[in-house]
């Protein structure tokens, strides 16, 4: 049986207690919400905290607050099932509900949290392996080694941003609240992520993600399409989140087109956004935008599927999301 390494387990019952415990234990400690990302990583010895601070008993992390007209605040430790099952979320933020619903399996969604998904470790099939396997390739720079096996001449790590919710949160302009013993800050979801497989989060390890603020819908509409081999279990090898604001005559007033799963962070397809700005979403414009969105997708050979095919699919998926939102 693959087992967890030894650690001390703490169960604070408030956010205050949790950040105090973190401050007391320093870099040896990690927070755990659902455990569906951290525990497999610990079993594979990718992460080996000496102290694990479990968040399950903190009720403040499991509430949904706010009115739809002002936006909704999700507690970071709501399970993905709870987010998916919340009829208000389904109604007002279908892209969020959809992304959460497409994560892994029903069993895992009953455990994994929305906050945990946003903070999901980047993935790579040179990294998401048991200790012995990684030893056989002399490890990689993300853990215990000094090379990136996907791109050996590269100075950086190319592990892949694999959260389904991240591109959606970026696309809809959500904000996240980070709390630590030195204070709290609220940052746009887009600023949470870095283009680096190792330092993929603009979040200090001692900061606790407590809330996700979904902005008021205010005429925006959004969707999320996920590419993967199977209808469950699999992480996205491409995720396309699109959020649009259309005028009455269906002209695009504003948009966000975000690609997940094809880089180390949610990639904004800015050129494609420019192409559709001020235009009506005709088939021709959609094709042009999809072509432009396909350019920044840089999949490498470290996930499922052939990488060239994954890149190709960005075009198809971007077109599909735009068509869906334009109701073509």
């Amino acid at each position, binding site marked *: 049986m693959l087992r967890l390494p030894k650690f001390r387990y703490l169960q604070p019952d408030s956010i205050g207690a949790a950040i105090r415990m973190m401050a007391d234990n320093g870099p040896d400690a990690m927070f755990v919400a659902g455990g569906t990302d951290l525990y497999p990583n610990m079993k594979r010895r990718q992460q080996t905290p000496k102290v694990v601070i479990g968040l399950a008993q903190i009720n403040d992390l499991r509430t949904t607050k706010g009115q739809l007209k002002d936006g909704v605040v999700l507690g970071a430790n709501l399970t993905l099932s709870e987010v998916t099952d919340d009829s208000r979320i389904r109604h007002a933020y279908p892209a969020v509900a959809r992304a959460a619903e497409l994560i892994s399996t029903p069993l895992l969604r009953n455990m994994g949290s929305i906050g945990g998904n946003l903070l999901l470790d980047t993935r790579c*099939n040179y990294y998401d392996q048991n200790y012995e*396997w990684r030893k*056989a390739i002399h490890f990689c720079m993300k853990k215990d080694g000094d090379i990136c096996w996907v791109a050996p001449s590269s100075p950086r790590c190319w592990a892949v941003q694999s959260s389904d919710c991240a591109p959606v949160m970026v696309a809809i302009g959500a904000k996240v609240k980070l709390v630590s013993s030195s204070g709290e800050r609220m940052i746009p979801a887009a600023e949470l992520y870095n283009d680096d497989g190792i330092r993929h989060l603009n979040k200090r390890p001692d900061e606790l993600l407590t809330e996700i603020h979904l902005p008021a819908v205010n005429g925006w509409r959004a969707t999320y399409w996920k590419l993967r081999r199977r209808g469950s279990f699999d992480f996205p090898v491409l995720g396309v989140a699109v959020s649009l604001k259309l005028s009455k005559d269906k002209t695009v007033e504003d948009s966000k087109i975000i690609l997940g799963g094809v880089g180390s962070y949610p990639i904004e397809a800015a050129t494609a956004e420019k192409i559709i700005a001020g235009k009506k979403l005709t088939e021709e414009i959609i094709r042009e935008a999809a072509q432009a969105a396909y350019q920044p997708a840089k999949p490498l050979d470290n996930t499922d599927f052939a990488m060239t095919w994954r890149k*190709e699919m960005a075009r*198809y998926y971007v077109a599909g999301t735009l068509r869906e939102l334009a109701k073509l």
Partner: protein
Amino acid sequence: MAGNNGGKRSLRVVGKPFVKVDAKAKCIGELKFADDLFLPRMLHTKLLRSTVPHARIVHIDVSKAKAYPGVHAVLTGADLPPITYGALPVSEDEYPLAVGKVRMVGDPVAAVAAVDEDVATEALDLVAVEYEPLSVVTSIQDAYATAEPRIHEYGEFGNIHRRQAYEFGSIEAGFAEADYVREDITFYEGSTHLALEQHASLAQFSHDGKLTLWTSTQDMHYLHRHLAKVLQMPASHIRVIATPNGGGFGGKCDPFNHEIVVCKLAMVTGRPVKICLTREEVFYCHRGRHPVLMSTKTGYKKDGSITAMHHRTILDGGAYGGHGVASTFYTGILQPTTYKLPNYRFEAVRVFTNKAPCGPKRGHGTPQPRWAQEIQMDKIADQLGLDPAEMRKQHAIAPNSITANWIRIGTLSLRQCIDKVVAGSGWKDKFRKLAYGKGIGIACSAYMTGTQTPIYYNKLPHSGVQLKLDRSGGVCVFCGSAEIGQGSDSILAYIVAEVLGIDPFDIRVVTGDTDLTPVDLGSYSSRVTLMTGNAAIEAAERARHMLREAVAAKLEVPPERLSFADRRVFDSENPEKGVSFVDAVCLAEEKYGTLGTTGSYKPPAAPGKYKGATIGPSPAFSCTAAIAEVEVNPETGIIVVPRIWIAHDIGQAINPVLAVGQIEGCVYMGLGEALMEEMAYRGNRNLVHKFPSFLEYKSPTTLEMCDVITYLVEEPDANGPFGAKEVGQGPQLPVPPAIANAVYDAVGIRIDEVPITPDKVLKAIRAKAKGQEGRYGPSAFPTCPMPAAMVVPTPWQGGDGKALEGEPALTKK
């Protein structure tokens, strides 16, 4: 010979959907698999595995690990007798723990037994191994090109493990007779069993020198022999108990290093020792589907009849022999069992590479050649403008015939199977008539019901059954078969109940225990129902005879008038007159003393007499026809398979609901291999397995599984118990080619290798759009020097089953 009762009969148990004898234990969590066993003072084992693909072991230092608190023993190869073992006598090339060198990432090098798995894992880190790397053989091409270093010191030469060449009839004459000849090069990727249960074993060594091993094995008997050999103990002092297998599919047939290691550790420590492999380690055990590159050159006439076939295969065997020599035969030897094939030449090569060893997976060596032939048949029909279903039907092999390679076929209702799926699927309204993107395809196959030859040469029974009856009325069946989920325990109860006129739940079944049960060779080659079933019939008929004689004397009726039904033994002419089954047993016990009978089974001799003729023949052949419907998205290449119709000639279903379940399982596994399953390695990164995990080795979930419309075709075969033939493997074979053929119908492209992934589909669609060949697949077939073929005249050439004189030496010992 025990066997079927012939013709239509009134059966009360056979053919009825009785619940399996172990079903409820499985549904309430009561059934104990190997890892569910706990013994007092039990230690836990972890194996240190090689992190290099090919290397000499310069030095191993286990001193720190031995001194670690909680560790009770550390073993390396030096602590075991220097004796090799392996599934087949011709390739016993494995050590329980590496001796001298390692041949793949994952080869076990040292073993630790400790108080718990945590301590054992920690101690592994303290074992220091120094390796001297050797160059690595990554692929078929690599093996052909690399004479030195050799992965093994035996075999043909270089890294060629095995070569075989046969010619039955004359392909030259056959090709001359043909209107057309075509050659197709195809590839079938390797895949693994992925049984949900990870291999687990528990060994106990008692102070009277007896060893007991509980283990999740399909082939307890062979394991028993290997343990005796490697541990240098009399087999009579070793007891192997095959625990229920949490899935087998061929993956638990080989004797495994960890099984031997826990035995040795139990002997060294004097304590029970358990091991349960991690999922990653299960990938290293492997023994799954060989990747096979094939060239199939076929001559045919305008009506689609085949005049000759030259079929060549190259198997990437991985690091060890295992069942590989048999697998090599199977990549060609059953090719003549589906359609009439008058002249056939078969050449096969198996190479060693530094990857996990391949072996028997459901269909053992035959899904690959079926793939090659069935997609080629579709191309032939397309070229000739024939309906591929009709063409197959027209040229299906005749029942009760002998093939070019001297395999005797009994009943074979392939035409009825084709009729069933053609009618059920609405084939005639759909084939070449569906909208672009939707398609339908057909494929067929035949498969053996147990191999005629045991793995090591002997003239002993293949299966034995003992029956114990006593005055309680209780009947207990003992058989050495291994229950792997297919229902082999239940089959024994059904058959004995049928013969003795009692309820299956009146019977206790004891299986898979070398101390308690007579030898059965194991759960492989689709042999279990036929062989244990026939042995059970013989044992039960002998018991029935004793009961009948005793009751006849008591009732004063002629014995032949007595019937057995409804837990009674009665005068068939005067059913009122009779005794209860319990009383009948008492009467027999009174008359004969303590009651016990035995039955055994050995397959009939096959007509082939040439060297190698023992592989392929079987007491009975099943056959299958499958039609797949697919939807291909031409913009993404993504394939969805909504439905498969499948008809299987099972002879007689002993239990229809279990038979249908086996067919559905076969469709599932075929679907997985067709669309996604792949044993992939990083050739340029120390040849590690690309993704030894459930997450990244893709297997279909509920959401990918198609609907299955199953038809059981029942034409009893004289050699099967009540006419039964196999159902556990054959139905998988036509599934991948039916899907590939449906993809062609949908979008007009040929994908000549599995898995048929969307990137390949899209490439072929794009190529076709550009006016190039709409195909994805291998285009070259590397050659290696082959020995002269053994030439065997066919039955219609007046042959006698022997090879022509001057037979070349093909098999090196």
